[in-house]
């Protein structure tokens, strides 16, 4: 099956006082229809910027300096600004972290959703509201017609995030980028949303990129995982393989420091040190100063080892297990 989203060599950089800083460095991955890809990393790893770069929503002082973003085979990077805009919301859409902030506080939910309908489809206002109502129904919002008339502050956080997801779904896009959409929610609400998203991916065939720092969420939700560190993907593979047998020392460290993925009663290991500043990266492997397996060779560019289960490392923990 061809990929709904294929990213090849995507590179995004920002101009800072100390020169250009590469926030997304040669990132490649692909997501098939109906699959959920977990993009995992600590804050500052470039995972959110990757999400925005896919939609071409990088403003000054940043720029996307290279790579391809293929949605259903169309390279978004080659499109004119207006053609790219017409892809957004229709073929590829996005959900943000904080549902308190993503809806305009002074406009009714229905007006905001109807606007999103009518920007791509020339339908009447009435028809647009009807489409919005259906979308709310799909994401499991009770009494959707009334919710449409509400202002955002009259809805709960979980409800607002469902509204945002419904808005992203309005045009049945092939790809949805979800940027930590459950981080700001209560755990019980988070569970409901995750189940809903899984169901939506299965039923609608939408490919989802789930950007998160929470490995526990990804291990239960995603089909595939990409682990980002300092702007690069350091490990990628199927969720089961990456969680069960991580190959990159950084992934190992991440998994070990998640309480729920760790045997109870033993002390929780930690990764020593802190996320590096992108403006002051060490040469070679950026994880080198914090890595227990680092040797002199790590000062040179790490190689890509393995295929389906890739690790960007001189000393991977295991050889790739053939599928």
């Amino acid at each position, binding site marked *: 099956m061809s990929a709904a989203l294929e990213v090849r060599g995507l590179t995004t950089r*920002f*101009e*800072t*006082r100390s020169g250009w*800083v590469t*926030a997304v460095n040669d990132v490649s991955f692909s997501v098939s229809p109906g699959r959920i890809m977990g993009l995992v990393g600590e*804050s*500052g*790893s*470039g995972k*959110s*910027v990757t999400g*925005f770069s896919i939609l071409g*929503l*990088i*403003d000054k*002082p*940043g720029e996307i300096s290279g790579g391809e973003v293929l949605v259903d085979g169309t390279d978004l990077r080659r499109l004119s600004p207006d053609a790219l805009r017409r892809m957004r919301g229709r073929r590829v859409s996005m959900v*943000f*972290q*904080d549902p308190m*902030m993503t809806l305009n506080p002074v406009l009714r939910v229905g007006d905001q959703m109807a606007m999103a309908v009518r920007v791509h489809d020339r339908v009447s206002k009435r028809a647009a509201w009807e489409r919005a109502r259906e979308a709310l129904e799909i994401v499991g919002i009770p009494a959707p017609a009334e919710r449409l008339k509400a202002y955002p502050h009259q809805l709960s956080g979980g409800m607002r995030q469902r509204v945002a997801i419904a808005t992203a779904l309005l045009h049945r896009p092939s790809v949805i980028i979800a*940027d930590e959409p459950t981080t700001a929610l209560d755990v019980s609400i988070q569970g409901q949303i995750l189940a809903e998203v899984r169901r939506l991916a299965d039923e609608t065939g939408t490919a989802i990129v789930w950007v998160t720092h929470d490995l526990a969420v990804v291990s239960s939700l995603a089909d595939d995982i990409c682990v980002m560190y*300092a*702007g690069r993907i350091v490990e990628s593979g199927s969720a089961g393989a990456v969680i069960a047998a991580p190959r990159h020392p950084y992934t190992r460290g991440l998994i070990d420091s998640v309480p729920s993925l760790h045997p109870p009663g033993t002390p929780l290991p930690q990764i020593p040190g*802190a*996320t590096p*500043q*992108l*403006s002051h990266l060490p040469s070679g492997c950026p994880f080198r100063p914090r890595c227990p397996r680092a040797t002199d060779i790590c000062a040179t560019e790490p190689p890509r080892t393995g295929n389906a289960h890739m690790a960007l490392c001189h000393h991977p923990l295991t050889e790739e297990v053939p599928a």
Partner: protein
Amino acid sequence: MSDTLSPEGATLATPAAAKADSRATRLKNFWADFSRSPVAVISLVVIVLLAALSFGAPWVTPQNPYDMASLDWMDAFLHPGTEGSGGYVHLLGTDNAGRDMLSAILYGLRTSFVIGLSAGALALMVGICVGLTAAYFGGRIESLLMRIVDLQLSMPAILLALVLVAMLGQGVAQIVLALVVAQYAYFARTTHGAATVERGKDYIEAARSTPLPTRRVLFRHLLPNVLPPLIVVATVQVASAIALEATLSFLGVGLPLTEPSLGSLISNGFKYIHTDRTWLSIYPGLFLMVTVVAINLVGDQVRHVLDPRNQR
């Protein structure tokens, strides 16, 4: 991370780096950001130059224009660039009393700076005290103080100053007092706004729960955090104090005619606006404008640099 579009790496670098930075590097960074705008740098140079000239006026100018003995009626209304009876060239001409305009302007400018700076500094101090007191104590004290401040803010400064000057009479001290009363509210509001934001943060709560005296918590912990917005307000207020003084003096309710003031000079020149003696009003006005605009431009750039969202 609410600001999802910003480069995570870059915003990440700022807080960690800022804490580690010494005061000197922070100053250096500030200057690096400030000097990004050539307009602001030129403005700063202009301000320094004008300040130096005006404070050095007694040594720089050929005559003391407010010493009646040094004036000669024969020199009245000399065109700019004409040589007068004193044997020197009047670069900007002379007025109806034979006063050298350049000298009068520099003396007037000195008054402007003195009034602007002292009114600004006093208003800053009063405003900080009112704002911090309100923010720190909260409750009734806060609502009473801020009510008064809001009420005053809704009254235009010019009106307050007019009434106060009318009540207090004319003179430098009276003008400064009127300006302080009219302007402290801006500082109080800014201090209060910034301090209430800080107050909600844990470190203030932590400092309050220790047996530190109130005054210490206020000035050592709260003040440094409300300082950046205050610096911006202060530059704007100094400029507006200078403009206000000139306006009041122009209207005839500011400084007495015996005191050098750009406003009175312009007011005097205004009488000759229908003649060709336009140098009498144009030149003092130009100096006033350049001063006020330069201060505002510097303030603008400071605001831009101190805005955390513009930090790179």
